[in-house]
């Protein structure tokens, strides 16, 4: 039933899976750039990185869901090049995604044997299938009715069934993509026990997660990716948490430090009168209450790992989600924030992280995208004339150097960096006093990246208040007056003045996390 580790290959010299120089670009933008990953027999190996680091592309490229541009994949020394997830499975590489892709309306047994049902004379042997299902799940400590629809069971059980199916199909490598995101602590424990059990039988497990506690609780080794590149491969036991976070978020300290002085000139005295103050602002189950005061010309950075509540905070600040705690005062006056329209009325702007789905309107032109927020604020009955629209579009295309400089081009045809600039232009056209930027430099090529940083710095010298979310710590350090560090959807530290440096942020992110009992 379960695959026995090949005795000849079980040597340290031949790794179970060796990926060398894996590269993949989408529309000219590299998502993976020469990545090496080595998975040994019987090990649990964490694949870590922030959003956009290339983890998903990596999994897709080795399982044949996307074709790779360059690089080799060898399994027990033999090159493999699956052209689909199905072929990958036949080769012994099984993937279980966060969203289990089994069929919830079929029974557990049917799901386990889907496409490979035991048959006799062309008929499915239901009894035999059930018997084998029960035996199979016993290895996973699962004592459930295999005749019940899979959808009747919890996500945890569904995950275990998916893993059992993969293992039973003689998988040698199991890739688990964020399997614990929707599980509770007890279910995670069961999953870990199964993982250890499987690893003990010689399977290699590639474990993708953003819960660092779990990484330290279960993995043997860690590979970190950042911006499509390999940052490093380490033994888990020999890698301090702080160092791991630095691998995920930071560049070399010296590099970041060199950028720091550029900010000194922008330091402005907090203007108490013209301040935007969020006090005890929060929403139950979403973001814990926090205080945030912003004066014009100030940049506040929001730092933290993926899932720490940064984006959620931004959405509260912009009224996308309504706060149920605390209050907002602008220039001393209490203000209600029930919708983005309220926020916009008070001079807020928001560039969301999901640029394509929540930012640009791809079909409309650059001009229309730029004037959109201003027009929405003025109302349908006070249209900007075409001349005014042209003038606004032209002004920002020149100011932000949007390329190609054609205001009538559908914005969907522009590169990511130019789309981001057009979105900035959309908000700058409303002459905002507070701009909230969520990962403004993600997925943008290097040139545009630098320009956007330059813009952020320039904007605050012109008196805007900015809240910037970024996983690029050295970037935050280079422009932020203050950095708020978040973990588990609450603010855990506020760093100001001299304390705003990469080391301090990393320490704050890594600070006193209780290790998960192993």
């Amino acid at each position, binding site marked *: 039933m379960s695959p026995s580790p090949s005795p000849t290959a079980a040597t340290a010299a031949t790794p179970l899976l060796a990926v060398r120089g894996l590269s993949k670009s989408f529309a000219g933008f590299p998502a993976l750039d020469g990545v090496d990953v080595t998975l040994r027999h019987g090990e649990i190996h964490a694949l870590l990185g922030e959003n956009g680091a290339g983890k998903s592309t990596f999994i897709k490229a080795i399982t044949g869901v996307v074709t790779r541009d360059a690089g080799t994949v060898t399994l027990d020394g033999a090159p493999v090049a699956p052209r689909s997830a199905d072929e990958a499975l036949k080769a012994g590489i099984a993937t279980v995604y966060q969203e289990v892709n089994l069929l919830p309306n079929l029974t557990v047994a049917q799901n386990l044997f889907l496409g490979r049902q035991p048959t006799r004379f062309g008929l499915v042997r239901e009894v035999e299938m059930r018997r084998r299902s029960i035996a199979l799940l016993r290895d996973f400590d699962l004592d459930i009715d295999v005749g019940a629809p899979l959808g009747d069971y919890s996500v945890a059980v569904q995950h275990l069934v998916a893993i059992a199916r993969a293992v039973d199909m003689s998988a040698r490598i199991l890739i688990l993509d964020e399997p614990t995101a929707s599980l509770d602590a007890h279910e995670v424990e069961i999953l870990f026990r199964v993982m250890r059990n499987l690893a003990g039988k010689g399977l290699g497990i590639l474990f993708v997660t953003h819960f660092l506690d779990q990484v330290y609780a279960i993995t043997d080794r860690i590979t970190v990716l950042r911006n499509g590149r390999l940052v490093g491969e380490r033994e888990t036991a020999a890698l301090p948490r702080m160092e791991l976070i630095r691998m995920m978020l930071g560049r070399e300290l010296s590099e970041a430090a060199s950028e720091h002085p550029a900010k000194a000139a922008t330091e402005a005295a907090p203007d108490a009168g013209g301040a935007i103050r969020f006090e005890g602002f929060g929403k139950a189950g979403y973001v814990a209450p926090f205080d945030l005061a912003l004066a014009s010309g100030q940049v506040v950075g929001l730092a933290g790992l993926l899932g720490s509540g940064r984006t959620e905070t931004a959405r509260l600040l912009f009224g996308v989600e309504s706060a149920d705690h605390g209050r907002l005062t602008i220039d001393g006056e209490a203000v209600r924030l029930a919708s983005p329209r309220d926020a916009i009325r008070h001079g807020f702007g928001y560039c*969301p992280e999901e640029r394509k*789905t929540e930012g640009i309107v791809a079909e409309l032109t650059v001009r229309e995208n730029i004037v959109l927020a201003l027009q929405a604020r003025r109302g349908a009955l006070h249209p900007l004339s075409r001349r005014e629209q042209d003038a606004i579009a032209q002004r920002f295309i020149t100011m932000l150097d949007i390329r190609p400089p054609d205001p009538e081009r559908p914005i969907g045809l522009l590169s990511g960096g130019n789309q981001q600039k057009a979105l900035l232009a959309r908000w700058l056209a409303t002459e905002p006093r507070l701009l909230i930027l969520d990962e403004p430099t993600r997925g943008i090529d290097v040139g545009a990246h630098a320009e956007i940083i330059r813009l952020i710095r320039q904007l605050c010298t012109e008196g805007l208040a900015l809240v910037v979310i970024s996983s690029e710590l050295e970037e935050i350090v280079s422009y932020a007056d203050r950095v708020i560090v978040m973990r588990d959807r609450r603010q855990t530290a506020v760093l100001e003045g001299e304390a705003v440096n990469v080391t301090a942020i990393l320490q704050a992110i890594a600070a006193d996390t209780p290790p998960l009992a192993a």
Partner: protein
Amino acid sequence: MRFRLPRKGLPQIAAFVVVLLINFAVSPQFFDIRLQDGRLFGSFIDVFNRGAPVALLSLGMVLVVATRGIDLSVGAVMAIAGAIAATLADTHALPVVLLAALGAGLLCGLWNGILVAVLGIQPIIATLILMVAGRGIAQLITEGRIVTFTSPELARFGGGAILGLPVPVVLTASVLAVAVIAIRGTALGLLIEATGANARASALAGIETRTTTIAVYVWSGFCAALAGIVAAADILGADANNAGLWLELDAILAVVIAGSSLLGGRFSLALAVLGALTIQAMNTGILLAGFRPEFNLVVKAVVVLLVLLAQSPRLSGVAVLLARRPA
């Protein structure tokens, strides 16, 4: 860039002209026009006059489709408005009759809009409810019979003429003009297109996407009611069983011929009307041609297919490739 719009509408205009020319080929008197009782008279005029109800429907439908919606109830709303107008016509003053019929259309639209924008029901399902129930409501109003009226004021909406032009044609042209001014003259058009192309991004940019969505359904209800009044005035009666039957499909087709994507976004009011007129030109041509009626639907389907193929960007790409090939 200055000639963007005409270039965009070129396939539609070409399709319309080709259908007219085919009509001329099968019926040489197609373009003959004379004055009859102070009203222009001829097959060419019929295309505009008979096409008016669907053109009105498509003026409503095109905005709904632009918001990524669909309104299946327009045919039933026509029946309701026609039933109300015909029932009241001989006992109430014209303004009351119009107000009641149009008001019913607005209410129907509001109902659809609330189902879609507030309750979040899929447009095709939400409007299906009124598509089915609406005809029943109309039948209740007429008690299942054809309610006839004699009011000459209401009759003018079907058979009257202004400066020789049939009233339905003048009415459609006026609604088109008003709509263009109200929608393209203000920022409504942009806000509707943005809402349809990306509702989440639009809401984050401060557009009242919910109000916008409700508004387009209300507008569609209004247009359908107007079409219902024209249809009732045309036959001097309200036929709840048949008024507007399946016309929602013609209206959707007109919008598709106009080049709108059913996934929302860009739209053109004028091209939607042109689409409706193209469909009617086909119908008129088929009637003039003298085919056996069994062929009506087949001929229509083939012509529609050709019109849509002519617009397909992929096909024109293939045509260009073929043309480039050395003979």
